[in-house]
């Protein structure tokens, strides 16, 4: 199977600090791939390079057969990669619906069509009842789902989720987990960065573990979570 996203030897340095060094992995079409690791492991830097928010210092990123490393984030989005932000970035003065309409306008210039797409996505994410509220009035769990909705409205092939479950209560986490599972079943490939292990084990088919900017393990959840190096560096004593 050819990978949808292929990362090879990717590196990013900030002055002397190697935030990400020589990381390689493949995400296959239709899978849910998770990246985990302790704070400061380089997850978000890696993520930002894939999404075009940051240019790498070395290595390649191939998406659907095309090199995308160094492209601007709007060009990456146009090619079919949707993303959310770890610190949510809604358009606060716009309504929930208009937030999602802006996303849908990436694929069409017709407002009626964009509104239709927005309604579908808002229904999928359980936000349809709040469509006329201003985004600034939403609670954090709703804002997190709005992030996902806006990204989905661009009709991506690959969805990048940056700690979309952080700060949520377990019931809200389960709600997003089941939404993501449905989306994945309908063919969407998902790459997620997550701290909430409950969500990672429930969703991911494969996991990559980052530590000090380097990949220290990769495999199925069972393999990775039993890996002694992972337990020592990340899961720590609580898992033992």
């Amino acid at each position: 199977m050819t990978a949808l996203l292929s990362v090879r030897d990717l590196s990013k340095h900030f002055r002397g600090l190697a935030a990400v060094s020589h990381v390689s992995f493949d995400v296959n079409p239709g899978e849910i791939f998770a990246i985990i690791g302790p704070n400061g492991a380089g997850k978000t830097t890696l993520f930002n390079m894939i999404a075009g928010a940051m240019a790498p210092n070395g290595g390649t990123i191939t998406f659907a057969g095309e090199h995308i490393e160094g492209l601007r984030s709007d060009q990456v989005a146009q090619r079919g990669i949707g993303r959310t932000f770890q610190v949510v970035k809604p358009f606060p003065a716009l309504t929930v619906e208009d937030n999602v309409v802006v996303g849908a306008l990436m694929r069409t210039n017709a407002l009626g069509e964009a509104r239709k797409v927005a309604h579908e996505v808002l229904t999928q994410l359980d936000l349809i009842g709040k469509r006329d509220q201003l985004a600034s009035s939403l609670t954090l769990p709703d804002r997190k789902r709005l992030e996902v909705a806006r990204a989905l409205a661009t009709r991506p092939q690959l969805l990048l989720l940056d700690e979309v479950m952080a700060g949520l209560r377990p019931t809200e986490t389960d709600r997003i987990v089941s939404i993501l599972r449905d989306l994945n079943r309908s063919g969407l490939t998902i790459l997620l960065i997550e701290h909430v292990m409950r969500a990672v084990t429930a969703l991911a088919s494969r996991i990559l573990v980052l530590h000090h900017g380097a990949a220290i393990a990769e495999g199925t959840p069972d393999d990775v979570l039993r890996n002694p190096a992972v337990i020592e560096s990340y899961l720590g004593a609580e898992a033992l």
Partner: protein
Amino acid sequence: MSGLWHNAGWHGKAIALLLLLAFLAAPLVSDRYLLSVLILVFYFAYLGQAWNLLMGFAGQLSLGHALYLGLGAYTATALWTLFGIGPWIGVFIAIPVAAAAGMFVGWLGWRFAIEGVYFALLTIAFAEFTRIGFDHLQITGASGGLFLSVNGPGADKWWNLGGGPLLYYYLSLILAVGATFLVARLRQSSLGYRWLAVRENPEAAQAVGINIFRARMIAMLISSSMTAVGGVFYGFYYRNLFPSQVFDISRSIELILAPIIGGLGTIFGPVVGAIILTPLGESLTGLMEAFGINAPGAKLIFYGIVLMIIISLRPDGVWPWLARHLKLDGARK
């Protein structure tokens, strides 16, 4: 606009139509003075729309719109006085001249990630050094000013904007109404949504595929072009131009007051703001005379106090509040 028109309730439509009819019929009952005040109302509503497009919609603060106003005014009036080219042709040369300046300022700022107050400083700088340049440009009279003759060949013809106040009254009304229609239409387009997204959060806008540089440049292109047309109006209405007046920062400031007072980023804000501000300035002048106050600057002090009161009472502008009270569902528009 069609969308906005359909969305407006029946009394929103009624108010809009009545207001338009009143303005159309106003010259029948107004004296010259009232007419000149209304011309200023429409002029500031028009320029307010142009500036609000860039600031209110695309979120980019320009404090140097006098640059485009002045370039528009000077281009068209110089073409007329030097070559006898009338304003209806001149305006189509004035627009690209001002738009090119706007695109250059925009490119310089946004290409090199100069944003917010730094971008505003850049816009001031360009207006200021253009003023100094024109102060020394002999062909347009340098600091001595450029004057339009009132008795040259064809100067009194309406097609050379040589008519009386009535011509300028309807011209300014058409400009204000036209600009409001244009802005409403743009707001309801996919471009309008992209502008709002860029204003609200550039990073998130880019993540949904919006080329933020291009979106801002288009806003600048339209805004500076519209302002140039206002400049042509200014030049032919006042019939004299001085660099120290038309390019002055006070020109840039006075044209942003109406949208701020009326409601930033709203369609009717600039109109409501202009309807409040121009008569306010005029009536303060009258009051000062009535009370025999003629200390220099006294009028501006009172004008400033009233602006502060309005802003502190209605920080979002008067229009959103007014729209709520008139039960018009355009409060956020």
